[in-house]
């Protein structure tokens, strides 16, 4: 497949690995945060870490849209399906994310709620057209990549007067999250450089990351999602660090420009506006970090259409997702990893999506866990979960 296979060449990977090993200064270490879950997935899926010298490590960032959605929002989504009996449509990964009281959309569905997976928000519109007598709600999540399709869907719904359709909007913004990670007052950050989002940047462009490179003096390399992209971007970051530079560089030039997709940006701006603040799992309340529907689309806003109960659900005690999402801990630092928390019974959101650091560790790297894994005869009851 064009633009796929050639970016997965084993030969080139071996050569690049040697180059990186040669250029990485053995006298220091390189902690490179891949902001996006997509990068996390590629790193694990292809075993990229294996090809890196010991002093170059990837730190998994908060860029997994499934991982960062806080429990109260998920509780509200369940409420829309259960109490308001709407058809709730969402992208697949959301189904298993733990909500309050060990609930999830999957469990709500098993209990009789009409929750369905869709591949695209375009399918959500189809469901709404096919069920005019039902309330159909699209549970919109994601960064700047999934936001433009939601904007298109809302503009379409408005044009068609699709009165039974609404959106429960949880779209969030990557720059605000990056800001939050870097701007920890009184703490020095253990991250040396960032791999910037690839697909997000294809929409918003590389310009929004320039201030981070400048203000926090951290190199940012906009990196493609294929494993060679990741390796080469890591090399670019290492070179910047070696040279004392801190710039935004764009490795993913085949898709990303400095200004991004202006048409998509315009549609997003037409439909959405900034929220004052939004709660992120792991990062807490982040000012200006999320979008909501503009007044003009109020009729399609599930948050106004349904009376939603404020939820006070919090993460399970012991779950290290917050620290992991900030890059401060690794999955293996969590005592619940692989014991009470597995992809079949995720305790935290990071154990759900293959872009979540814990799930990626579980699926692809858990043999490195060693004594962290429970022995055959240890008993793990549910009481371990608060």
């Amino acid at each position, binding site marked *: 497949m064009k633009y796929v296979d050639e970016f997965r060449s084993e030969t080139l990977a071996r050569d690049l690995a040697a180059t990186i090993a040669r250029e990485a200064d053995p006298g220091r270490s390189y902690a490179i945060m891949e902001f996006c879950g997509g990068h996390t997935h590629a790193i694990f899926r292809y075993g990229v870490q294996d090809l890196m010298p010991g002093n170059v490590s990837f730190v998994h960032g908060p860029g997994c849209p499934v991982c960062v959605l806080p429990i109260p929002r998920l509780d509200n989504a369940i409420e829309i399906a259960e109490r308001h009996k709407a058809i709730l449509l969402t992208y697949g990964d959301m189904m298993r994310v733990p909500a309050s009281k060990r609930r999830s959309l*999957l469990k709500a569905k098993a209990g009789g709620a009409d929750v369905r997976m869709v591949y695209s928000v375009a399918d959500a519109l189809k469901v709404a057209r096919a069920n005019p007598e039902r309330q159909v709600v699209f549970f919109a999540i994601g960064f700047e990549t999934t936001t433009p399709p939601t904007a298109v869907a809302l503009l379409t719904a408005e044009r068609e007067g699709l009165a039974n359709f609404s959106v429960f909007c949880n779209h969030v913004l990557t720059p605000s999250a990056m800001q939050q990670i870097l701007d920890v007052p009184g703490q020095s950050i253990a991250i040396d450089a960032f791999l910037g989002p690839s697909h997000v940047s294809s929409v918003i462009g590389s310009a929004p990351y320039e201030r981070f490179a400048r203000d926090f003096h951290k190199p940012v390399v906009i990196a493609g999602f294929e494993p060679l992209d990741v390796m080469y971007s890591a090399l670019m970051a290492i070179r910047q660090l070696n040279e004392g530079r801190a710039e935004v560089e764009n490795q993913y030039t085949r898709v990303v420009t400095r200004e991004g997709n202006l048409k998509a940006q315009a549609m997003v701006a037409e439909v959405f506006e900034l929220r004052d603040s939004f709660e992120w799992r792991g990062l807490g309340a982040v000012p200006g970090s999320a979008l909501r529907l503009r007044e003009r689309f109020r009729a399609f806003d599930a948050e106004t259409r349904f009376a939603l109960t404020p939820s006070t659900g919090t993460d399970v005690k012991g779950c290290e997702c917050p620290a992991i999402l900030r890059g401060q801990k690794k999955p293996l630092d969590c005592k619940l990893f692989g014991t009470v928390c597995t992809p079949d019974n995720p305790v935290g959101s990071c154990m759900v999506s293959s872009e979540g650091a814990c799930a990626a560790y579980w699926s692809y790297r858990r043999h490195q866990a060693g004594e962290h894994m429970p022995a055959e005869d240890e008993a793990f*009851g549910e009481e371990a979960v608060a």
Partner: protein
Amino acid sequence: MARRFPVRLDIARGKVEMTHGGGGRAGAQLVEEIFFRHFGNAELAKAADQAQLSIAGGRIAVSTDSHVVSPLFFPGGDIGTLAVNGTVNDVAMAGAQPLWLTAGFILEEGFPLADLDRIAASMARAAAEAGVEIVTGDTKVVDRGKADGVFITTSGIGVIPEGVSLGAARIQAGDAIIVSGSMGDHGMAILSRRESIDFDSPVESDCAPLNGLVGVMLAVAPNLHALRDPTRGGLAAVLNELAHDSGTGMLIDEQAIPVSETVHAACELLGLDPVNIANEGKLVAFCPAAEADRLVAAMRTHPRGRDAAVIGHVTPGQAGLVRMRTRFGGERVVDWLNGEQLPRIC
């Protein structure tokens, strides 16, 4: 080695989820912690694609039944007891000793694990009583609204003793027709719990394994001609099928058919006839008239045959026609039940 399932299934409060059917770890856990736990035997525990079993050469009986009974739990049993006995009995009706069962489960998303656990326990008990092992199985999960809680398909294998040969083809004019006990208990127990009919009564399903009784029968009447368990469609359906398949006529005596007072009363209430109501622990036997009394006497020594009785005989001519001398002194045809009156009793 790491445990595959660090967190135990929450059987008390859990529900079947689509995850349990996707071919992943969750499904393997469900099978292990519910089915293996209850059915536990060496062959099943291998968790292989199939059971591998040693068998002596000869003739075997093989049968299958899908069970879709509603409600799943009823007086005297549940879909689990039914799934085991329904197939054990079909194997036993060949005169065979049932040895092994397979079980295929189709689960509806949202089905309470506690109910599934209870059903598996019932199956284990019923299998133990019948002396069979559940040696292999399969589990599927379908979306809510695409099934009705749980469907169970069982298949059974039994060994037919040397010299035993039972079947419709052996039925001949003059044969005595014998039933092993009262008619209609199972079907009426189910109906008493149907939403649109419900009534109170002490009637319980007769659901039980018949292989023990068949063993007793073969011991005294190795020349038995045919056996059939009058399940769906009741006695009437079985007699009509066998009359058709054997090309004989049959004449039965209403007065001689054992029916409990309660089933009789419930039939009056609902306008039904006990000969159309299902049984799950009864059989109909055909044997030479000369052996009938000895056979009935032997059957009565077994708990499942205490009320055994000759109810009629096979006639020449009028092939395929089943007639009944009514309790009132008249005569009538005994037909299959028409229409859909009694769905999902098994």
